[in-house]
C-alpha cells in the first residue's frame, strides 16, 4: 500500500518522482520541464516569427542603438550568462552533498537575476523619459513586448529561486535527492531564459 497512515495528511507515492524510470532514463520533473521548455520555444518562436514579419515588411527599421542603450544591455547579457553558471554550480555542489555552497550559488543566481531586472527598469524608465513608448513605433512595440515577456520569465525565476533558497531549502533535510532534482529542473528553466536572451539581445540591440 502507499505510505504510512499519518494523522493529518496521506501522501500518495508517485513512482519515478526522484529516481528515473529505467526505460526512459528520466525522472518525472525532468521530463516535465523539458516539455514545458518545448512549449516556451513555441511561445517565443511565435514572437520571433512576428518580429521577422514586421521587420521584413517595414519600409525602414532603426538600428538598435538609435533608441536603446547597448552598453547597459551588454552588461545585462554578461549578468545573465553569469547567473547561468552560478545555477549549474549550485546544482553541482548539491550533488557533492554541499548544501552551504549550493545555497550560496542559488543566492548568487538570485542576485544576478535581480540585477538584470533592475537594469531593465533603468532601461524602460529612460525610454519613457525620452517619450518612447510601445505605441510610438513598431520597433519599440516589439522591443517592449519581447523584453517585457522575457522579463516576466526572469521574475518567475526570481520567485522560484527565492523559494528554494529560503522556505524550500527545508526539503534538503528530509529528501536531499529530490531537492537536488528540483534545483536541476529550475536550472534548466533558467538556462532557457538565458538562451532566449542570447537571441533577443542581438536581434533588438545589434541588428
Amino acid at each position: 500500500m502507499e505510505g504510512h497512515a499519518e494523522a493529518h495528511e496521506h501522501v500518495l507515492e508517485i513512482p519515478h518522482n526522484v529516481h528515473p524510470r529505467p526505460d526512459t532514463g528520466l525522472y518525472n520533473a525532468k521530463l516535465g520541464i523539458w516539455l514545458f521548455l518545448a512549449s516556451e520555444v513555441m511561445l517565443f518562436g511565435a514572437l520571433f516569427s512576428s518580429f521577422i514579419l514586421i521587420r521584413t515588411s517595414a519600409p525602414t527599421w532603426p538600428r538598435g542603438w538609435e533608441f536603446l542603450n547597448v552598453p547597459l544591455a551588454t552588461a545585462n547579457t554578461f549578468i545573465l550568462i553569469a547567473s547561468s553558471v552560478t545555477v549549474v554550480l549550485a546544482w553541482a555542489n548539491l550533488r557533492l552533498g554541499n548544501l552551504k555552497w549550493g545555497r550560496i550559488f542559488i543566492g548568487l543566481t538570485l542576485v544576478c537575476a535581480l540585477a538584470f531586472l533592475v537594469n531593465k527598469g533603468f532601461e524602460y524608465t529612460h525610454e519613457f523619459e525620452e517619450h518612447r513608448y510601445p505605441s510610438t513605433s513598431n520597433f519599440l512595440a516589439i522591443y517592449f513586448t519581447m523584453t517585457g515577456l522575457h522579463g516576466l520569465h526572469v521574475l518567475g525565476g526570481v520567485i522560484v529561486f527565492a523559494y528554494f533558497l529560503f522556505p524550500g531549502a527545508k526539503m534538503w533535510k528530509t529528501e536531499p535527492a529530490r531537492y537536488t532534482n528540483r534545483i536541476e529542473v529550475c536550472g534548466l528553466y533558467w538556462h532557457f531564459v538565458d538562451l532566449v536572451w542570447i537571441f533577443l539581445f542581438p536581434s533588438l540591440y545589434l541588428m
Partner: protein
Amino acid sequence: MAQRKQLRVGTQWLYADDAEKLLREAIRLREQEEQRHRIEGHALPFWRQYIFSTDHKWIGIQYGFTALCFLLFGFSLMILMRLQLGWPGHAFSALKLLGEGRAPGGILLPEAYNQLGAMHGTIMVFMAIVPLAVGAFGNYVVPLQIGAPDMAFPKLNMASYWAYLTGGLVMLASFAVKDGTANSGWTSYPPLSVIATQGQTWWLVGMIFLITSSLLGSINFLVTIIQLRAKGMTFMRMPFFVWAQFVTSFLLLLAFPPLEAAGVLQLMDRVAGTSFFLPSGLVVSGQPLHNAGGGNPILWQHLFWFLAHPEVYVLILPAMGIVAEIIANNTRKPLWGYRSLVGAVVFLGFMSFVVWAHHMFLTGMGTLISAFFQTTTMIISIPSVVILSALFISLWGASIRFTTPMLFALGFLPMFGIGGLTGLPLGLATADLHLHDTYYVIGHFHYVVAPGTIFAMFAGIYYWFPKVTGRKLNDFWGRVHFWGSFLCINGVFFPMFLQGLAGVSRRLYDGGIQYAHAKAIAEQTNPFMSISAIGLLAFQVPFILNFFANVFAAWRGKKNVDDNPWQATTIDWAATTSPPLGHGNFAVLPAVYRGPYEYSCPECTTTDFVPQHVETAPAPPPAGGMLPEAAVAQREM
C-alpha cells in the same frame, strides 16, 4: 500442463488453492483501506478534499461538472440566436432576458447577435468541449487505464483546473461589462477586434488563463503516460483512448503557445496602443486612427490558426478514443487494425501542425503557398479515413450489444463521416472560394463537433458513469436521449450545407434574408432548423434528469452495478467502483500481461474476454468444483 483449479473472485481469476489465502488477504486490505479512509477522510478538511483536491478523479469530476454547465450555457446562447434566425424581427420573451440594451422589445440587436455568436463559439470550444474531453475524461480515465496511482503532478493538476475555472469566470464576467462581451467572432480577427468594445479585452485575459490551464494539463498528461504506465503496459498495449489523449496533449503543448503570444500582442494593441495588427492609414467611422501603423492583420490569422487548426483535432481525437473503447467493448471482439489506428493518430497529430492556412485561402496568399496548404490538407484526410474505416470494419462479424453508450458511439460514425467528407471541398482552394465564410463551413464543423464529439462525450458519460458512481444511468431514457438528439441534430445542421452552397454568409444576424440570393433558402430552412434546435434542447432534459437522479442516488449510497458491469478488458475496470479519493486507485497496482482488447480470444472459454491485468486466461472450472465460501460470480451470458 496440469490444470490448477481456478475460481473467479470479483473481477479476478485466482488459483483455487491460493484463493482462500488471497481472499483473506484481499478482505484484510480492503478493511485496512476503509479504516484509513475513515480516519483520513475526516482528517483532510472539506476544502482540501473537494475544493482544492489533488486527486485526479475528483479533478476530473470538477472539470466534467464545470464543462457540462458551460456546455449547457453555450447551447442556450445558440438557442437565443436561433430564435432570431428562424423568425427574424419577431419579438420573443426569451430574448427579453438579455435586457433592453441587447434585445429591446425582445428583438435581438445585430451587435448583441455578434456577442452571442462570438461567445457561443468561444465557450463551446475552449470552456466546454476540450475541458470535458481532455480535462474530465482524460483526467479521470487515463491514470486508471494505464495503472497509475494518480497523475504525475497532482498539485499541477489542481492548478490547471483552477486556471480553467478562473478563465471561464472571466469570460462569463464579460457579459456584465459595458457594451457586453467580445463580438468579433471566436476568431477575433483584427483590425475589428482591436477597435472593438472592452469585452474583447476580457476575452483576451480569459484566453490567457484558459491557455495556461491547457499547457499545464498537457504537460501532466504527457509525463503521466510516458512515466507512470504500470509494469507490462508497453505503448502498444495501451488502450486507444490513451493514445488519443497522448497525441492530443502534444497538440495542446506545442500549438497553444503561439495563440498565447498572439493574445499578448493583441492585448498590447488594445491596451498599449501598439500596431502589431493595425495597418497604416486605417479609418474608423470616418476618423483616421492615430496609431503608428505598419502592422499586419494577417499575422494574427497565422498565429491564431496555427493553434486553432490543431485545436480541432484536440476536439475530435479524445472522442475517437472514447468511441474506439466502446466499440471494442460492445462488439466483444478486438478493434480491427490497432496498429493502423495508432499510426494514423500519430501521423494525424503531426500533420495537423502544417495545414492551418487552409482557413486563410481568401487572404490573398499566392499560388505556391496555397498549393502547399491544399496538399497537406488533402494528405491529412487520409489518417482520418483510416481511423473511421478501422472503427467501421471493427463492426464486421461482431456480436453487437446495443447498449446506450454503443448507440451514441455508432451514431458518431456516420456523423463524423459526413463532417469529414464535407471538409474536403473546403480544403481545396478553388472550391473554398465559393464556400468560405458561408453556412457550409458552419455545417461542416458542427457535424464533426456536435453529432461527432458531443455524441462521443455522451457515450463516454453513459459508459464510465458506473465506474465513477456505482450506478448505471437509466437505459430507457438514455435511448430517448439518443434518438431524439440524433434526429433533431441532423435537422439543425444538415440544411446548413444547402444554405452554404446557395451562398448564405455566416455571422448574419438575420440569417440572410436581407440578401436577394439568400432570402429564399433562408426563409425555407431557418425556421425548420430553429424548431429542430428547440427540439434538441428538449431532448437534453431527460439526460439532465437521468444524470442528476442517479448522481443523488449514488451519493446516498445506492449502488446497482459491480466493478465491471460492461465486462471490459481495460484496467480502469479493475479498479473498484468509485475509487476512494487520495489513496491511489488500486488496492494493488496491477501488472499488464496482454493487449487492451482481448475479447473473443481463443483461450477464452468461460468468459468471452480476458482483462489486461490477468496473468493467465481462466481455464474452465471442473464440474461442481467450486469453493462454497469464495465469492464466486457467475458470468452473465
